């Protein structure tokens, strides 16, 4: 079982290097992450982007990129399209975002999935490593669907379950989150929770458990009428997967790592392999952790039929 980001790093060292396309590593943090990941034996990079910019930042981080395959391109969408077509045609195993808007990459993934007829809903899974917790927490969808309906949420959940099971958990525990509270009537997010729970009970998602709790208060205190106690507060009840109601919620909560003592790693599991999508504001150390995660996920996806 993979319980921590260290586990990803350890396994990535064993299973790497994997051939990975980096889309526009034109910023020092990204190039430094590529350098470190290559040195650790995680990846064999293929660099796509503006040659001058890539050379300049490579020099700054003292990384000789002369020996790596480099594909020249300035058009952001063109770079994303090319990287994803290489992944889907089997020329490489992972794609990673560099200094390029994520929306371009999502667009390329959706095009490729449509071309292959996979029918796969594209969604982002962001893992949190929380100190003291014996498992990683997957938040989804933190990047693509602005306001998913119940049907889309079901697909998003299936994607997250697929990824989480790759970590070695046959029956993940899930919380379908909602802002449902004592006033304001029934929220759409709460109605979706109810429907997803029924679908899970009917076996739609395979082995898993959707908790009877939609708020953190319910998850951690066991109800909304129990007092908050900072002294005895512990996160042992944390589920494996948190399905968020919408993009605003998902993105805002998952990037609380800028404030909380948690580490975040994000990916899109496409039908042909993972796409690593660090935020443009992430540090190089954090990007390295995210690349290690993708190396392990791609390794474990081999032989899996989605």
């Amino acid at each position: 079982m993979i319980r921590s980001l260290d586990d990803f790093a350890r396994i990535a060292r064993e299973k790497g290097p994997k051939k990975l396309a980096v889309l526009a590593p034109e910023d020092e943090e990204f190039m430094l992450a590529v350098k470190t990941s290559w040195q650790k034996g995680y990846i064999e990079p293929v660099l796509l982007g503006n040659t001058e910019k890539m050379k300049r930042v490579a020099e700054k981080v003292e990384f000789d990129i002369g020996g790596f395959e480099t594909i020249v391109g300035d058009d952001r969408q063109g770079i994303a399209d090319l990287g994803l077509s290489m992944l889907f045609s089997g020329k490489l195993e992972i794609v990673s975002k560099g200094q390029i808007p994520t929306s371009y990459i999502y667009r390329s993934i959706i095009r490729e999935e449509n071309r292959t007829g996979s029918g796969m809903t594209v969604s982002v899974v962001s893992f949190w490593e929380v100190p003291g917790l014996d498992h990683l927490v997957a938040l989804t969808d933190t990047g693509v669907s602005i306001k998913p309906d119940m049907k889309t949420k079901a697909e998003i959940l299936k994607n997250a379950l697929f990824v989480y099971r790759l970590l070695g958990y046959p029956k993940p525990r899930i919380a379908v989150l909602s802002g449902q509270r004592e006033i304001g009537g029934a929220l759409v997010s709460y109605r979706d929770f109810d429907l997803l729970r029924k679908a899970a009970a009917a076996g739609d998602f395979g082995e898993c458990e959707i908790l009877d709790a939609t708020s953190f208060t319910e998850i951690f205190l066991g109800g909304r009428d129990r007092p908050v106690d900072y002294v005895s507060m512990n996160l042992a009840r944390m589920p494996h997967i948190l399905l968020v109601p919408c993009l605003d919620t998902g993105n805002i909560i998952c990037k609380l790592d800028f404030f909380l003592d948690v580490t975040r790693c994000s990916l899109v599991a496409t039908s042909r392999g993972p796409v690593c999508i660090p935020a443009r504001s992430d540090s190089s150390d954090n990007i390295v952790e995210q690349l290690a995660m993708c190396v392990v996920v791609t390794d474990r996806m081999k032989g899996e039929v989605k």
Partner: protein
Amino acid sequence: MLRFFKDILDAAKEGGAKKLAAPCAEKKDMDLLSKAAGSGLIIPCLIGDGKAIEGMLKGLPLASLEHEIMEEKDPDKALGRSIMLVREGRADMLMQGSVDHQMLMDAVMDARNGLRKGKLTSYVSIFQLPKPEKLILVTDTFINNNPTLAEKQLILEHAVRLADILGIDAPKVAALAAIEQINLNIPSTVDAAILSKMSERKQFGKAIVEGPLDIDCALSEAAAARKGLRSVVTGNVDIYLVPEIDTGHLLAEALVFFGRLETAGAIMGTTNPVILNVPFVSEENRIVEIAIAALMCRKGEDHA
């Protein structure tokens, strides 16, 4: 500027005791009221079953402190009488007691007999940040489900007013969204941009609103700079305005359970302060909510 909950308590005590109407108070409310009365914050007016109230008071310091008991066994009527006390100026603030949340809010918002002041009420969560040592406000975390842009304007005005009560001059506001760019398919980014523009035209007084901001840009000046965003707000936010309730409620809870931040809250948009029982506020911090209400009373009719 008040930086800690203790500062709020100290400032509130300076203003003298306020009259608090509490319908159908439970034992845990009685403990809180006893503590608040003992601190010189309030003089409780307890409306409910007199015998039951006297039973709960036994052994509490409040029994020997100034208080009033009004007999009214019916919970609906107890709530109505409590609100009437406030409307008539015989009490300064209202506490929820054991009344159901929705019943309380419906009664408060009643156009004829409630405590409604304007078009909308909102809830502001106040967090005590350890580093830097300051108070931050997050809104709306409890009342409004999916506010329109016009409603967000009011919610923000409420928060700015509360910031003023807490001594935060020219508050820096992050109008949060999923991304920091305006995307016409993501309504929160458009609303945030408009609010930001309104702030440029001084429509929120001295408050500086930046939006849309994603949470990383709001929390970190360095993260924002890496995205090419430079603003006095990034990394130094006083007020976080959330797009809707799923985000607001869950964000507030995340700050409590993952960040272990102490929190208290306040309802804004009523004629007099109303103290609501919000599940993620600890029993210890409910006295801070009474203190905030007392500070709001000192601001007179413009409190909320």
